[in-house]
């Protein structure tokens, strides 16, 4: 009896297992998940993991090559330990990717829900604003907003969040327009449920799939965006370690210390690659029709 209980799964558990298998069937998705987990852990425990003080300068140890004693990945133009700076810089990148996406998703989804559900003048205002924001290329919008807000990591995150909002609005609204005509929503309307309950209780949970997919695209985009803003001097400010500022500092020493330019870029690329591979797997699980 007990063995039968253990092997017979409830429909929900069986569904969950099917989804998990669909994800693990793709080696790249699993690799992406492992990568994302590593980067998140390094972001959280960075200061503990870093082998040396990331800001300690040492003028007799400038541009020490990688794999030297005491400096696994060498030192930079001020003799600071590159590995430690990469580790500590992880947090800024992860924060930018996750926070910017989260802020954009919360605001974008709320506006998309209201615009799509209530229509009317609210819809017109929200959609025209979206059109205007989308009429600026992403980099120009982000650079413009970051320069208006002033150069700092939190302002760069805010600028990226605002640049990401329009897509979340559009996706949510399109879903809401389709869902609000569905019988179950109409039934809720007839039974007297309030707009808030219908929007957040009934409609939102049924349009989560495209939103999760969009978030999985937005996070690596925001990581690159934050690195770009720091690279241009509009994000995290030196001497604080961040991948973008390290890359920008390295540009002056390309002929002296090539590895110094390679390493921070590699960190950005590995992080975005992990998120992209993980996101691809997620898409496969949530929306298998998309890949046929």
């Amino acid at each position, binding site marked *: 009896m007990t063995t039968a209980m253990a092997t017979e799964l409830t429909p929900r558990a069986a569904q969950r297992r099917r989804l998990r298998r669909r994800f693990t069937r793709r080696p*790249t998705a699993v690799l992406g998940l492992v990568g994302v987990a590593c980067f998140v852990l390094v972001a959280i425990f960075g200061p503990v993991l870093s082998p040396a003080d990331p800001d300690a300068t040492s003028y007799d140890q400038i541009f020490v090559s990688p794999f030297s004693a005491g400096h696994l990945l060498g030192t930079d133009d001020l003799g600071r330990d590159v590995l430690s700076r990469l580790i500590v810089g992880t947090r800024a990148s992860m924060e930018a990717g996750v926070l910017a996406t989260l802020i954009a998703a919360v605001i974008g989804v709320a506006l998309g829900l209201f615009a799509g559900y209530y229509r009317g003048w609210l819809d017109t205002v929200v959609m*025209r604003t979206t*059109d*205007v924001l*989308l*009429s*600026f*290329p*992403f*980099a*120009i919008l982000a*650079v*413009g907003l970051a*320069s*208006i807000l*002033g150069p700092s990591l939190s302002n760069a995150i805010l600028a990226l969040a605002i640049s990401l909002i329009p897509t979340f609005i559009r996706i949510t609204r399109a879903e809401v*327009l389709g869902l609000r005509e569905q019988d179950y929503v109409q039934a809720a309307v007839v039974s007297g449920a309030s707009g808030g309950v219908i929007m957040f209780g009934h409609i939102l949970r049924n349009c989560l799939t495209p939103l999760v997919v969009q978030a999985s695209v937005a996070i*690596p985009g925001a990581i*690159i965006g934050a*690195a*770009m803003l720091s*690279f*241009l001097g509009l994000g995290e400010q030196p001497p604080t370690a961040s991948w973008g500022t390290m*890359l920008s500092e*390295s*540009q002056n020493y*390309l*002929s002296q210390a*090539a590895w110094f*330019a*390679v390493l921070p*870029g*590699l960190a*950005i*690329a590995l992080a*975005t*690659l992990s998120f*992209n*591979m993980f996101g*691809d797997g997620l898409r496969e699980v949530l929306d298998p029709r998309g*890949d*046929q």
Partner: protein
Amino acid sequence: MKWFVLRKVGQSMLTLLIASIVVFLGVRALPGDAATAMSSEGASPEVLAQIRQSYGLDKPLPVQYLDWVGHLLTGDLGKSPQTGLSVSAVLASRIPVTLELAGVALLLALLFGIPIGIFAALKRNTAFDYLSTTGSMLGLSVPHFWFGILFILLFAVKLHWLPASGFVPLTDPVANLQHIIMPAAVLAIGLAAVLIPQMRSALIQSLSEDYIRTARAKGLAQSAVIGKHALRNSLTAVVTVVGLQLGALISGVVITEQIFVVPGIGKLTLDSVYNRDYPMLQAVVLITASAYIVVNLITDLVYSALNPRVRIQGAAT
């Protein structure tokens, strides 16, 4: 269809109008005082007041906006206070550079992206297919600016094949190509990374359609089935992707021009931000936005001409 086009054009004009207000206010929202930025350091209040007056900065904002738009419509974009050069003259010298860069990038992306996508679709689940999929994923994940630095490291610093940065006008075609090829390749990688999987899945999709089975059943050669039937239908999807990607291309231009020191409008945008060159910044951002709006409008119209279902859905929203 006529009403659909008119409505879309009207919407774009409205967007452009609001965008111009946003640009105008955005530039004024930049930290720092325009007059201080325009004058030499430690200028007396009288000098500052004079600068404000000569650039109309003492007038109320709505008047300043209308002045700007009025001049804009007559083709007068003002002068850069920092360099004294006419904004329209600077733009006229910068825009062709960016167009060339973007054009070469697009050409490279199509030249490599389309055949690779087709080949990956035809040789599905082979080593080539996996390689191209992985390559596209890498191209999407690796930031432009790092590719740029790696290219400079490899081709300029190590191999000395190409100049690291700068630009030479088309009057010297060889030197021009030597300078433009690296930044164009960097931009092309980003474009091809989107194009390849789209081309691949569009072709796989069309190959599974009924009319392909019919074409095969009536004994048509494989090359004719693919060339005449499948490819034509999948290319329409690619046209749309290219249209949508032109926006991403403009984004890429900003940072790529900065790294390779290419004097196009991307670098001009950043320089104007750094120098607080307000008339220049206003003009260059508005021009980029207009170009973007027009490209989006054309993509929309082409797409709806190819796919009539969009028109009906569009009318409902």
